[in-house]
């Protein structure tokens, strides 16, 4: 069928001008879009007021729906656990026996650690928790891996703060509104985290791949030393992320790149903690000052 079109005005002058004006406005709109785009790429925190207005509108619905979904989302695991109950029970029993010994050893090591630290006059720096919240939604249709948190600068959350879950590192805050904040997830290509291998402290950097995995590259060696099964944690180098937050476990090698799976799966974690940025220089200065004052006494 060939529909009639208002876009063929014929001899009507007024309609012709109207049509021309609509083209001018449309092309002008597209150009304004390009300008805005350039601004938002060059200055990522720009327009954050606009974005957080949108986030605040969506927050109540998203956070309530999220409570429902977390319950439903774990249903498949519960069913699978029921089916495998027998064999799982035996395996878990063996694991518990093995872990009990390790726990006792770990406790002994912890006490020794406390003792040694006291000898060295090292004080534990505070954990630096700014706020705790829930991940409520994410940019599900966009390729940027950004999740939304239900706490904002009313609770002390500021851009640049690292976010972690009990399982491991989640990402860092890129924008914060009054009661919401956007988290750039660990799995985003733009999120680069200094890490180290737990077994021998080989440093590396982790960057996201945008598909739920992360890539681990070594800092200083030609060949990639990371092997499947290696566990990496944050190294604390360069500040921002506190040391020893679990990051991921290397799953496979791809063209000399180690592909790791993050410990904190953002679609599973419920409660996350926003930490204050880690500043190693200040922390060292503080502990030095404390040691000096202890000496004076």
């Amino acid at each position, binding site marked *: 069928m060939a529909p009639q079109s208002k876009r063929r005005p014929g001899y009507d002058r007024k309609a012709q001008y109207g049509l021309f004006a609509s083209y001018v406005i449309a092309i002008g709109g597209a150009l304004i*879009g390009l300008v805005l*785009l350039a601004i938002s790429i060059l200055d990522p925190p720009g327009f954050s007021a606009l974005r957080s207005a949108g986030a605040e509108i969506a927050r109540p619905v998203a956070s309530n729906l999220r409570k429902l979904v977390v319950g439903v989302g774990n249903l498949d695991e519960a069913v699978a656990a029921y089916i495998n109950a027998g064999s799982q029970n035996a395996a878990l029993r063996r694991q518990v026996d093995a872990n009990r010994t390790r726990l006792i050893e770990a406790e002994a090591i912890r006490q020794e650690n406390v003792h040694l630290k006291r000898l060295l006059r090292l004080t534990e720096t505070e954990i630096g928790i700014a706020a705790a919240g829930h991940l409520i939604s994410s940019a599900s249709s966009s390729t940027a*891996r950004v999740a939304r948190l239900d706490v904002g600068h009313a609770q002390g959350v500021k851009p640049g703060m690292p976010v972690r879950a009990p399982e491991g590192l989640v990402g860092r805050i890129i924008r914060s509104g009054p009661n919401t904040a956007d988290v750039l997830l660990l799995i985003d290509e733009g999120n680069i985290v200094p890490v180290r291998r737990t077994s021998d402290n080989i440093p590396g950097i982790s960057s996201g791949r945008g598909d739920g995995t992360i890539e681990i590259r070594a800092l200083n060696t030609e060949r990639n030393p990371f092997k499947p099964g290696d566990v990496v944690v944050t190294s604390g180098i360069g500040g921002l992320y506190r040391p020893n937050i679990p990051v991921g476990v290397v799953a496979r090698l791809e063209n000399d790149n180690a592909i790791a799976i993050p410990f904190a799966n953002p679609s599973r974690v419920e409660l996350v903690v926003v930490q204050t940025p880690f500043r190693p220089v200040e922390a060292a200065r503080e502990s030095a000052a404390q040691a000096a004052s202890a000496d004076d006494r």
Partner: protein
Amino acid sequence: MNSRRYATRIARPRSALHIRGTPIISVLLGSMIVALVPVVAQAPLLPPFGLMIFLGWRVLRPDIWPLWAGAPLGLFDDVMSGQPIGSAIFLWTAILLLLDVENQRHVWRDYWHGWFTATLALGLALTGGWFFVHIGGHGGSLVQILPQLAYSVGLFPLIVRLCAALDRWRLP
């Protein structure tokens, strides 16, 4: 008897807001779905519902959107979707302009033609969206938008049916 049967379906009282506002509000709601769905996705998971409803109305009634309609609706979509602001403003307006050019070349249209042009438009929008995120230093490889594109295209006829149902409801 027939008059009673159709009495509830024709010549109903409808305000201008009801007639003009329904398409706009449906697109805005479509853009909002993405921000409301309580799933933290590890890859682009949801089709761009706002754009699909926008295109659905365009396929159904080629004259429904003024050429500049992509700019304000795209701005709202950007705010909701987490794309860099300006991405959908540009892409949606460009799509409307391209569809307008196409409309002048090929006057005859049918079901398959509508689906095909919408497929091209969705492909342009998703690739463009990926590109704008990519030059900002985020995102990942282009491959990850392929599943999203596949079910956007697959769901499109359903969205057009939805728009058609809304169209029957909004008109007197």
